[in-house]
């Protein structure tokens, strides 16, 4: 009666009913297990990111890694952007239930959920970046972001004419904080009287906030800005371009975002890191551990912008490289007190 009331013309009603029927049918098909994409024995890899993959940084880098796994290993891949803890566990479980072999939660926040889910899906390997927990099928993956951040600090200090440099983070997460400390120590190594301004935005998405904080630091004299703010970091580049100061990219190679104002990027080679773990999983060589990936593994790098590279004097360049060598050779201990014991407990491949 109600439907006839709403659709006085039978034609409309009939098509509405047909739609309902079609919908019911599709639900039925799904319920009967039909339509599962892909074959059962394909190597399947999933990625969960906390933010949009268009940030050209932390999330975008991980997505590039996922695509690299797809392209070079022929894997079936899936990605989901999810921000709410309640959904982390659900998505982990769904991937586990669908027979995914490797599921990467991209950020420390995924760790608790992964720990809960892992025991229920022994055939799936769960990896949490910035995580430090392990289980037979759960690994952590730490990026020694601070190693290259230290190098960035050295360059920033010497290139600064004002003696003030800045660092802006999204929110105060452990790896962000650690890298800012490294940045400051690197700077002080080169120039002990340097002033380092540190600020957090409280958001990873608010571009305008990023720009304003950058402008505020520039106004305080900062002429080199280090940042780790994902999408909001775009605002920092925008400010740098407007005020003609130099910045560092972070997480992904961001040298091209503002080619005249990004001196270099502290890059996490997420494709390399993810491929590494994906290959281990596929070959059966996976061992539960906390991957400690830094300069030595070639996963974290300071990638200088070729267009601006000439601004860096040769002696500074040599000094930065020597610190890099020391890190790779395990002779560098300036950051040991900052990093958590758990981070160092893992093995470095």
């Amino acid at each position, binding site marked *: 009666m109600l439907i006839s009331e709403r659709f006085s013309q039978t034609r409309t009603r009939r098509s509405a009913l047909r739609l309902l029927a079609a919908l019911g049918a599709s639900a039925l098909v799904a319920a009967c297990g039909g339509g599962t994409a892909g074959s059962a024995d394909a190597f399947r890899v999933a990625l969960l990111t906390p933010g*949009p*993959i*268009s*940030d*050209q940084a932390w999330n*975008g880098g991980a*997505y590039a890694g996922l695509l690299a796994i797809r392209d070079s290993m022929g894997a079936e891949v899936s990605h989901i952007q999810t921000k709410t803890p309640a959904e982390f566990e659900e998505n982990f479980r769904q991937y586990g239930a669908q027979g995914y072999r490797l599921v990467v939660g991209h950020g420390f926040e995924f760790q608790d959920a992964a720990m809960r889910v892992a025991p229920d899906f022994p055939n799936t390997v769960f990896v949490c970046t910035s995580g430090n927990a392990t289980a037979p099928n759960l690994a952590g993956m730490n990026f020694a972001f601070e190693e290259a951040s230290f190098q960035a600090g050295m360059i920033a200090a010497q290139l600064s004419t004002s003696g003030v440099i*800045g660092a802006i983070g999204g929110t105060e997460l452990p790896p962000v904080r650690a890298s800012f400390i490294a940045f400051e120590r690197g700077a002080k190594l080169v120039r002990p009287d340097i002033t380092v*301004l*540190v*600020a*957090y*935005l*409280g*958001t990873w*998405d*608010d*571009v*305008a*906030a*990023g*720009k*304003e*904080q950058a*402008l*505020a*630091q520039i*106004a*305080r004299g900062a002429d080199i800005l280090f940042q780790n703010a994902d*999408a*909001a970091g*775009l*605002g920092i*580049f*925008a400010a740098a*371009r*407007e005020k003609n100061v130099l910045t560092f990219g972070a997480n992904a190679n961001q040298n091209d*975002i*503002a080619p005249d104002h990004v001196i270099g990027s502290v890059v996490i080679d997420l494709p390399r890191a993810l491929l590494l773990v994906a290959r281990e999983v596929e070959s059966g060589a996976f061992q539960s551990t906390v991957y400690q990936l830094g300069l030595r593994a070639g996963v974290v790098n300071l990638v200088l912008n070729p267009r601006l590279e000439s601004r860096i004097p040769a002696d500074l360049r040599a000094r930065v490289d020597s610190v890099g060598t020391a890190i790779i050779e395990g002779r560098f201990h300036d950051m040991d007190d900052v990093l958590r014991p758990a981070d160092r407990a893992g093995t470095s491949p």
Partner: protein
Amino acid sequence: MITPLDDFLAAAVRTATPLALAALGECITERSGVINIGLEGAIICGAFAATVTAGAVGGSSGVAAGFAAGAVAGVLVTLLFMLFTVYLRADQIITGTAITLFALGLTGLLYKTVYGTTGVGLTIPTTGELPIPGLSQLPVVGRAFFAQPLVTYGLYLVVPLLAWWFARTHAGLALRATGESPDAALAAGVQPRRVQALAVLTGGAFAGVAGATLVLAQSGTFVEGMSAGKGFIAIAIVVLGRWSPIGVAGAALLFGGASALQYLFQSLGWREVPYQLFLALPYVLTLLVLARASARAQAPAALARRELTLG
């Protein structure tokens, strides 16, 4: 010599600009008796349309086109809200909530469709600061108010113009009368529905321009959800500004100032005060101001009323 105060004020004005734009539009809307909670949706749509258009056209004409597109997008999404609330007389709060949801979802979806996984980056042309010779050299207020993007100067014209328009034109009277008593307005020869429809759409255009400002005069890029609650802040600003254009401009400056304070404090190295406090401050302030009787007396009497006329 540029002092921290100069920078703080400049940041306050910059941050206040899109807020003031959206709030002035909402002020017009609310004066007609309609509260548009879908403002947030109009802002994000304006931002997205500005991004696409400015990027496609490029250059300084791209910026102009972007602002225009922002306004159009703001109007279009608000048109939906307007049809529901003004003509169907649907509940304004619920419709507004749905519109915001709709716009946030749609822009997210379209952003991926248009720009794929890499996003738009910093490829959008933007307007720079345009210091006004002489005025920008004034002490304290010079840089803050006279070394801003063009859109901010636009506000300097719009705010007094709007105040004058409210008080000194018959259209302004008609708008206020509609918000106070649609019955009275109708009897006096005003067409309340038309007034509300136009007021709501004008508010949408302002919100769209506010969104375009976020992209073209501030960020230089688009990010999903970059409106970041600014529509809701704008509604608070209208209340705080007591539904008058001058008051709204002042309240927007206050909200901008609260945000700028956070930047200032952090850049001065004072990090003991949690930044969440600064983010929450404007809202708390609005609540406190609302508790003062004089603030509410200014509210349009027919605000959010569903039935247009009682007769």
